[in-house]
């Protein structure tokens, strides 16, 4: 496990900072043992079904519906969490008000709170007889728990720290000079925000959106209590994986897992490309 592993062609290449071989060995071993080999199993298992079988297993309307729901809800949740995250980041970085430090710390709460606990709490709150669900139902006739809306709310909770925490450092870094420059050039405050601040933050917002989406799309613990789990309506893809597992359909379960992984990758890749285009447009 030395540098030769990484560089088969140049056995003894000189490195500026020593210690690469050992560290790279550890990193590679750790990565392979914990991530790569397990995911390889996920990659290979579905093909036991054969390509046609794999396709049939994924083309089933319920699977398609659950994938649509999982990805749709996650995208929507990330889209809601992005402006909320921007708002929180802005408040924490730019505004001074009592309780700012508490709000700052609270942003990480969904990171630290176990997802099952979050799910239970959300359900307790949003159920038709809960603190929030009750008034919502009584006053507006809205039902949130056990509907896709409940899923989206749970996912917003999960995605929020990702969107807020990616924007925050960039905002902190941005400083006020460019805004001041814009002001001296005669821009109104709104023009400054729209044409100077927002574009500067856009890549970070996009990154946060992507991370929040990635985290939300696979979420299980906090969603399962509140989802309602109705086939074709509020059944998320991870639940379908468990359902398949319970029918002893390992390959089918892995197939959905693989599909989720690939779809998530495609979305993240698209975001990455969009971000690169965004940066290029600015550079």
């Amino acid at each position, binding site marked *: 496990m030395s540098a030769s592993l990484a560089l088969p062609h140049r056995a003894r290449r000189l490195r500026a900072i020593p210690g690469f071989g050992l560290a790279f060995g550890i990193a590679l071993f750790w990565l392979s043992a914990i991530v790569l080999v397990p995911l390889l199993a996920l990659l290979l298992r579905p093909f036991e079904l054969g390509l046609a079988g794999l396709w049939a297993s994924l083309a*089933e*309307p*319920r699977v398609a*519906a659950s994938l649509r729901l999982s990805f749709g809800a996650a995208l929507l949740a990330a889209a809601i969490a992005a402006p909320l995250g921007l708002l929180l980041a802005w408040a924490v970085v730019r505004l001074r008000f009592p309780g700012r430090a508490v709000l700052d710390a609270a942003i990480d709460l969904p990171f630290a709170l176990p997802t099952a606990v979050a799910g239970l709490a959300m*359900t307790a709150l949003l*159920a*038709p*007889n*809960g603190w929030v669900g009750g008034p919502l139902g009584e006053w507006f006739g809205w039902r949130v*728990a*056990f509907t896709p809306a409940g899923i989206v709310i749970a996912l917003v909770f999960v995605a929020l720290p990702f969107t807020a925490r990616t924007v925050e450092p960039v905002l902190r870094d941005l400083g006020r000079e460019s805004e001041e420059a814009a002001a001296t050039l005669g821009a109104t405050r709104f023009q400054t925000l729209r044409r100077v601040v927002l574009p500067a933050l856009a890549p970070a917002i996009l990154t946060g959106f992507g991370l929040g989406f990635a985290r939300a799309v696979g979420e299980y613990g906090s969603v*399962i209590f509140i989802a*309602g*789990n*109705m*086939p*074709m309506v509020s*059944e998320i893809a991870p*639940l379908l994986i*468990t*359902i398949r*597992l*319970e*029918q*002893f*359909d390992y390959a*089918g379960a892995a197939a959905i897992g693989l599909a989720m992984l690939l779809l998530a990758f495609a979305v993240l890749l698209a975001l990455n490309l969009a971000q690169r285009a965004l940066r290029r447009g600015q550079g």
Partner: protein
Amino acid sequence: MRSTFRPGRRAMLAAPALLALPARAQGVRELLNVSYDPTREFYRDYNAGFAREWQAQHRQTLRINTSHGGSGRQARSVIDGLAADVVTLALAYDVDAIAERGLIARDWITRLPQNSAPYTSTIVFLTRKGNPKGLRDWPDLVKPGVAIITPNPKTSGGARWNYLAAWASAQKHGQNPEEFLARLFRQVPVLDTGARGSTTTFVQRGQGDVLLAWENEAHLALQEFGAGQFDIIYPPLSILAEPSVAVVDGNVDRRGTRDLAEAYLRGLYAPAGQEAAAKHFYRPRDQALLQKNAERFPTLELVTIDGAFGGWAEAQRVHFNDGGVFDRIYRPGR
């Protein structure tokens, strides 16, 4: 730097040691019973009695571990290597699934009396106090405005019994059973993954007008949440639910626990086991005991899975497998 890390490292090593249980005494034998959700309370009672008796007879301390969860998930865990000595699951189908992988002898169902089901149950309605919607029989459930709570038959054994009971009733009333079930499931607002989840949704979250539940779950809900809030309604016809028990041959032979496992299951048929079952609202096989508790276990017409559906394998294939009737119910466009 160095000085700040050291105590941390020590504390980290110390923490688990602090909580560690004392080393297990010698001569302790262990048994793992992998069961499904609603049996927790029952087996906690039964385990205590059985361990006492075993201790008295064999001078061995027993430590009986239990694992509870959805019946299907539990069967899957055993298939994947959970080292269960006995399984006590909701359906014969789940035990069959384990047997198919060679961990249990194929003829398991005949190895113990009465289809290897030492206690039975049935499916009943749990309604709000006073049964405000007037639900007496299965056809009442699909009246407009009735919200039904039942778990997902794909993930819950109990839900499959619910489903089949409804099917049998529709057949008896001369309705198209598939249409009846489609209507019924359209009135289900929440489809939990397990029987316990459904009970919580109905009782705790106040969802729905009626919960389709195991008889024992309904009684337990009354006991836990106050008898004044709910009524148990017995429909004229329901299904005989036979939760199956079996020794996991592959594991007991490896672990040397066959004697213990077999005694454990046989004990379920013994008076103590039957009484514990009755106490926890499972219908005992012992007819005398059943008569004695007639008030708790009213007589009703019960169809059997073998009689009405041609056995579990067939029922599973027709109704619950991917592409089966249950999936058709949720086809878009209906």
